[in-house]
């Protein structure tokens, strides 16, 4: 395999998009944008990537253009963050409905207000129900690999859905680290040229985006739901294929030292690395703790998750977003509902940490484990808990 090179993770994602040999990139190149599209515009301008780069006037337009481009049969990419994703919201739901295999990188950053550009998962969680396939990268290598995987899955004839690759803003997007890169030729072993099933073509006119009268709307929704649920098989198969070709293996849920652990932390994204270090530290102190993390968030890997928690007595779920006025973070609530009907299930406690760029440290995880252990002993904890709130 190729030697690892030092590169900013955002630029590595751009290089993955280049390796995927995309045809069109549409982006609104201003804050909260990352270096991803900046570097892609350089690659196109320098003739290193044969694609159209369209600097549009808003993210709403970026997604609209992506849909048009994808409908014309082009391999299409965009990237955004926080408010940019929020501005796309109206159009986001159209992409899966039209079965457009668009790939988007979302450098996760908080939503205002208060005005914030820092890292958390409040942006992606507002689009949880958009029918986009959603994966989460833990480090730069994963951000690169998941980007290629995203194109492969999105364009698979059994899927044809857009894919959103999530990577933590700043704590991942702005970090220089060693990453093994791939050229277009190397990537082509995995990702073949895109052959669309149906395109907008004046010689063979078809309608895309018709009205869903009450007589068909429900059936259409049922089809989208069937499609995204069925996509899980392709997602897993394509990870296996990727592993065979490149030696890096991925699955929907990763576990770390969970075997026989009395308490297991649950995370998504780059804080999982810090969590592993925290687990090692706590293990050294004799605390029986492990870690589980979701790489795949949509479709939710229900059966894999139910299998993975078998025998675990206590789960401490760490969310990076909050669902106001409900029962805590979206991951926590999802995890609880996934296990409610199981005969044997762990005690589950929810924590919200690292909002709007608040650093998540090994101490944060130790505090969470200490609290969850205490609640588990009592058999009772709060509805959920925000960690590190300064109240004085």
């Amino acid at each position, binding site marked *: 395999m190729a030697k690892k090179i*030092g590169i900013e993770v955002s630029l590595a994602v751009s290089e993955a998009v280049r390796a995927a040999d995309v045809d069109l990139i549409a982006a609104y190149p201003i804050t909260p944008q990352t270096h991803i599209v900046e570097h892609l515009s350089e690659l196109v301008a320098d003739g290193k990537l044969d694609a159209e780069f369209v600097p549009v006037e808003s993210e709403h337009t970026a997604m609209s253009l992506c849909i048009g481009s994808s409908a014309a049969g082009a391999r299409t990419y965009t990237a955004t963050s926080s408010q940019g994703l929020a501005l796309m919201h109206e159009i986001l739901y159209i992409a899966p409905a039209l079965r457009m295999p668009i790939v988007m990188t979302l450098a996760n950053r908080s939503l205002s207000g208060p005005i914030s550009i820092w890292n958390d998962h409040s942006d992606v969680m507002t689009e949880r129900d958009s029918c986009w396939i959603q994966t989460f990268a833990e480090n730069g290598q994963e951000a690169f690999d998941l980007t290629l995987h995203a194109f492969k899955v999105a364009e698979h004839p059994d899927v044809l859905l857009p894919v959103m690759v999530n990577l933590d803003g700043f*704590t991942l997007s702005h970090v*220089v*680290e060693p990453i093994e890169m791939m050229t277009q030729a190397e990537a082509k072993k995995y990702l073949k040229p895109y052959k669309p099933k149906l395109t907008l073509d004046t010689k063979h006119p078809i309608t895309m985006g018709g009205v869903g009268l009450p007589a068909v709307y429900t059936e259409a929704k049922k089809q989208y739901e069937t499609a995204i649920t069925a996509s899980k098989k392709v997602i897993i198969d394509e990870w296996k294929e990727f592993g065979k070709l490149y030696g890096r293996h991925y699955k929907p849920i990763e576990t770390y030292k969970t075997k026989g652990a009395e308490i297991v932390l649950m995370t998504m994204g780059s804080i999982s*690395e810090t969590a592993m270090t925290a687990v090692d530290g706590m293990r050294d102190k004799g605390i029986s703790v492990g870690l589980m993390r979701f790489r795949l968030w949509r479709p939710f890997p229900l059966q894999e998750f139910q299998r993975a928690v078998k025998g675990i007595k206590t789960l401490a779920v760490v969310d990076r977003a909050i669902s106001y006025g409900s029962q805590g973070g979206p991951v926590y609530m999802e995890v609880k509902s996934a296990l409610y009907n199981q005969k044997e299930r762990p005690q589950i406690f929810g924590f919200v940490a690292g909002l709007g760029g608040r650093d998540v440290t090994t101490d944060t995880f130790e505090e969470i484990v200490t609290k969850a252990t205490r609640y588990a002993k009592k058999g009772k904890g709060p509805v959920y808990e925000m960690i590190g709130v300064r109240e004085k």
Partner: protein
Amino acid sequence: MIEIRVHGRGGQGAVTSTELLALAAINEGKYAQAFPSFGPERRGAPVMAFTRISDKPIRTREMVYTPDIVVVLDPTLLQIVDVTTGLKKDGIVILNTSKDEKTIRKTFGIKAKLATIDATDIAMRNLGLPITNTTLLGSLIKACDVIKLKSIEAPLQKRFGRIAEKNWNALKEAYSKTPNIQ
């Protein structure tokens, strides 16, 4: 694992210096990470940037709270920031100043191992600018052996292109004028 914290002011290249250091370490086959303290970019405001270097994969994303080495690009920061905060026992401070070590220790109460260098003077003569980030890399490499001197040349060349040579000269001058204090 070695953790390095660079203090500078917005526009002085603190982030660039941490990135160059990480790139050089990665080129040596080590694991490394470089990242800024994330905030609104304001020219002149105190900023920090970090590098971690290790022989093993680095599995943490938290900020650097207990650095082994602190580099200070701008001497005026000493009056407003305690640059030794969290510095490990036996930690090292590398400071850009025109004053001598004794005066600095007395004025600011620094007890840690300290290497001083008049990086502003070196940068002014070599670059014609009071931008000391690459100059202080020379001092850092000499004082602490974190990477080999020649490893920094390629990343420096790639980042600075036609002005790389001036930066390389400034870096080498600082290298020759700094003692190894490890």
